[in-house]
């Protein structure tokens, strides 16, 4: 397989402030949906008010899976077409996914302490989620330590695609193994009183994810464009 030269820039640097209003909307919507969920949902029969942690924990986990699916999609497309833009999008989604993955783990610990009596247990769901998190920390470390842009893109595309394959394992872990963690929550399997809050917060997290990936992509484009400009200077002042 051949890849196009990394010295010729093949992407347009997006305008950093262009999505400012979308970002403001996403944050405003998240505040609104959190207030809505907390104010309208009754205490759960078994867990009482602890149930309200679901509105942040479950969307954080869903967004983690979705972000890593984006990594898989663009990593596979990079390996197929060799377009630098796909590599940068995959890297942006990986960092955002790792952030939400870390958040989901932290929120699970906060929920687990009063519900199970422990902050952490080596349960299949928790352990597989931690493994997923470590894979993508490894992915980000790989990108930070490889200087050659083409090699960095190829290696991280392979690691990103392989890492994302772990997502179905994490998702199904509660059914495949005996776990302390409950089976997957979704609007079809819960009391209708909680459905609106969960759906609304899932969309709010989705908007935040889209905004974060876009901004992280802008940073990645600027970094690569700067490298291209430096290479152009080194090659004798060609236009970057």
């Amino acid at each position, binding site marked *: 397989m051949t890849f196009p030269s990394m010295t010729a820039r093949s992407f347009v*640097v997006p305008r*950093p402030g262009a999505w400012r209003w979308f970002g403001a909307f996403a*944050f405003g919507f*998240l505040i609104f949906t*959190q207030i809505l969920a907390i104010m309208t949902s009754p205490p759960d029969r*078994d*867990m*009482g*008010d*602890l149930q*309200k*942690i679901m509105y*942040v*924990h479950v969307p*954080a986990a869903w967004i983690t899976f979705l972000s890593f699916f984006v990594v898989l999609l663009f990593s596979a497309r990079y390996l197929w077409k060799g377009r630098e833009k796909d590599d940068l999008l995959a890297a942006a989604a990986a960092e*955002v996914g790792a*952030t939400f993955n*870390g*958040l989901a783990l*932290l*929120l699970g610990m*906060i*929920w687990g*302490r*009063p519900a199970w009596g422990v902050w952490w247990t080596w349960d299949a769901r928790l352990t597989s989620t931690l493994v997923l998190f470590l894979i993508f920390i490894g992915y980000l470390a790989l990108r930070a330590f490889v200087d050659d842009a083409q090699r960095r893109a190829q290696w991280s595309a392979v690691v990103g695609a392989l890492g994302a394959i772990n997502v179905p394992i994490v998702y199904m872990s509660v059914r495949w193994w005996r776990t302390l963690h409950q089976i997957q929550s979704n609007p079809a399997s819960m009391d209708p009183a909680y459905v609106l809050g969960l759906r609304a917060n899932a969309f709010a997290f989705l908007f*935040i994810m889209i905004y*974060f990936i876009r*901004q*992280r992509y*802008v*940073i990645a484009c*600027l*970094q690569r*464009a*700067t490298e291209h*400009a*430096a290479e*152009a*200077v080194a090659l*004798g*002042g*060609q*236009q*970057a």
Partner: protein
Amino acid sequence: MTGSNWMFVIAAYSVTWVVILGYFARLYRGVRREQSAYDAALAGTVEEER
């Protein structure tokens, strides 16, 4: 389960906002830093052309 559970609920929402706002701040600073670096690199390219 009692009202003391609110402590955990408040902790969960606080952690959520610390992570989200922290990452937002990181992105905001990153965009500004990389935009400056890019502008400087472009200026270098133009200087070289002259």
